């Protein structure tokens, strides 16, 4: 940070930053609307590479969302495939009132709900119940009545070796750890961190509250971090 920025009072600095952020977001929204129009035009012209690009970007997310409704990998794939058919069949009627991405996700959600039928969805109630595992085992903290550092680290985390962070094996550990998470946590971390959706997009795609999204993300990330810690420490 420059010395000049330091000299600004904190509140002013925050205001400057948020104004800048706002205009950046606006630009991004405008640009993506223009991109959407180009994509729609190309699809209508039968451009297969553009379709392939869309599939590359969203198919995995679609399957992840479907899995929270149907609980079966093959059926989730099916629902995602049906969604692409519906997208192609409806593309000429796409009016750009929402982004193309949101439109595709909405089609998927409606189909997955129908397919899920009466089977009760695992989100969000049972997803939040019955899982009060702490982020870190409680014995790694000092007791609350410790005279010096109540609830401070008794066994602090040890820094991970940087050279090993680049290995393919670490990525495999992350993949395994995510696969072992409960469905709802898997969906949230999968969409937010793996596929890079915004928190708002995850909330809309999974039809859960912002609070639930945050809790599920927290549990998921905490568990994956722990799995990595176990891997590095042993």
């Amino acid at each position, binding site marked *: 940070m420059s010395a000049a920025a330091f000299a600004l009072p904190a509140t002013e600095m925050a205001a400057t930053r948020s104004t800048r952020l706002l205009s950046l977001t606006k630009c991004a929204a405008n640009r993506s609307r223009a991109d959407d129009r180009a994509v729609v035009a190309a699809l209508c012209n*039968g451009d*297969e590479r553009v*379709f*392939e690009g869309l*599939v*590359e970007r969203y*198919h*995995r997310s679609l399957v992840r969302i479907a899995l929270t409704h149907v609980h079966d990998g093959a059926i989730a*794939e099916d629902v995602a*495939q049906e969604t*692409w*058919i519906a997208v*192609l*069949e409806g593309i000429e009627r796409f009016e750009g009132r929402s982004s193309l991405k949101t439109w595709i996700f909405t089609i998927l959600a409606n189909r997955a709900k129908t397919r899920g039928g009466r089977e009760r969805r695992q989100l969000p109630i049972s997803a939040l119940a019955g899982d009060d595992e702490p*982020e*870190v085992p409680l014995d790694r*903290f000092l007791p609350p009545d410790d005279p010096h*550092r*109540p*609830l*401070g*680290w008794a066994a*602090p*985390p*040890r*820094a*991970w070796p940087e050279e090993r*962070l680049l290995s393919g094996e*670490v*990525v495999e550990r*992350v*993949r395994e750890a*995510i696969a072992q998470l409960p469905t709802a946590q898997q969906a949230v*971390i999968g969409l937010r*961190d*793996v*596929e*890079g959706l915004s*928190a708002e997009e995850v909330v809309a795609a999974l039809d859960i509250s912002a609070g639930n999204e*945050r809790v599920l*993300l*927290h549990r998921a*990330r*905490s568990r*994956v*971090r722990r799995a*990595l*810690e176990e891997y590095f420490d042993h």
Partner: protein
Amino acid sequence: MTCRELVRLITDYLEGGLSKRDRRRFERHLRDCDGCTTYVEQMRETVRLAGVLSEDDLAPQARDELLEVFRDWKS
């Protein structure tokens, strides 16, 4: 703020969901605590590594089927 509390609030912090006051408490704690600094770094690293998974290719079968769908639609 205690270390235990920081561990609980970390996702709210990283997702920009803390109140101004809690954010200040969080950052003040971090300045004096190596253990929590490492913890936050590890959490950021975890998020980054999860993002690497998105570089996985789509299963060839899924891709082929979808391209088939596209060709049917086009014709």
